[in-house]
């Protein structure tokens, strides 16, 4: 058994393969394995580090995972600038070129469909963050109910607090729908990813929407303009709209397969 394995990045049309200058995961040279019309972009990794139990252990080492994730992404970004790609999930690993070719044969139809569907299209991410207090302030019911003491005043205060919370929740949901549908107007497909909490995102504000949009390449400027316009329109909610991309189409490569719920 060889002490090397093949790490796969993504699938590209066979005729589109050109040399990738970025080094691959763990420093391996990036190469292609071709079968018919499809090429898998791969690089060698050591079995010691990437097989079975050691892989599982390494995946739980954040520094290791970050390095590998960024190396994987760097290769895909370089490919993305040149051709259509079907990105593979992290840790798609084969024994050797034969194993990779067998996969290309087995998955030929789905991969070919995906490449056709994604040609000329780009995935962009858009996040909506607001200042939760300012959003709530725009919806707070007027009138100062029941400052007095006693049971009736207490109940009235509680009722008002509940109404305030509900109004804020409804306003947030309405805002997300407004922003998402304005962005979807430019997109062929869209998904909502789970909003990230502040510690994970490093962004200030409450993330209400973490969307991914599949666009025709000529719609990118329009999407950005819409995002800027929405940020301005909702400025009194403290809205920030953060656009990232183009991404390898991670969220749209799998076709109609249902996504895991958040």
């Amino acid at each position: 058994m060889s002490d090397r394995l093949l790490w796969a990045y993504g699938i590209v049309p066979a005729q589109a393969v050109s040399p990738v200058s970025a080094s691959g995961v763990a420093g391996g040279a990036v190469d292609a394995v071709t079968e018919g019309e499809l090429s898998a972009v791969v690089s060698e990794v050591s079995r010691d580090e990437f097989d079975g139990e050691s892989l599982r252990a390494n995946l739980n080492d954040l520094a290791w995972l970050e390095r590998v994730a960024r190396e994987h992404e760097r290769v895909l970004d370089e490919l993305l600038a040149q051709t259509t790609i079907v990105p593979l999930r992290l840790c798609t690993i084969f024994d050797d070129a034969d194993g990779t070719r067998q996969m290309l044969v087995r998955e030929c139809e789905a991969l070919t469909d995906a490449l056709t569907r994604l040609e000329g299209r780009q995935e962009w991410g858009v996040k909506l963050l607001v200042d939760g207090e300012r959003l709530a302030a725009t919806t707070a019911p007027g009138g100062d109910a029941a400052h007095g003491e006693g049971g009736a005043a207490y109940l009235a205060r509680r009722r008002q607090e509940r109404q305030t919370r509900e109004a804020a929740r409804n306003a947030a949901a309405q805002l997300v729908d407004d922003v998402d549908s304005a962005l979807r107007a430019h997109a062929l497909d869209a998904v909502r990813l789970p909003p990230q909490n502040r510690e994970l995102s490093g962004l200030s504000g409450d993330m209400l929407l973490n969307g991914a949009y599949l666009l025709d390449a000529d719609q990118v400027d329009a999407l950005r303009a819409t995002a800027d316009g929405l940020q301005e329109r909702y400025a009194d909610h403290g809205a920030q709209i953060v656009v990232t991309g183009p991404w390898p189409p991670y969220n749209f490569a799998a076709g109609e397969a249902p996504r895991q719920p958040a």
Partner: protein
Amino acid sequence: MSSTIAEQDVALVDLLDRLLGGGVVIAGDITLSVADVDLVHISLRALISSVGKLEERPPR
């Protein structure tokens, strides 16, 4: 203001959300089941958030 990936470092959480949560899932020869990856993803979210907290501490 909106900005592109090229203009900023890609946040690790954005990357992992896509690399672990998206992408085509194809059975490789080295089997790491979808469940394994999902478990990693869940434990990582906890891990990253605790790293975030560590970084907020004043420098030693």
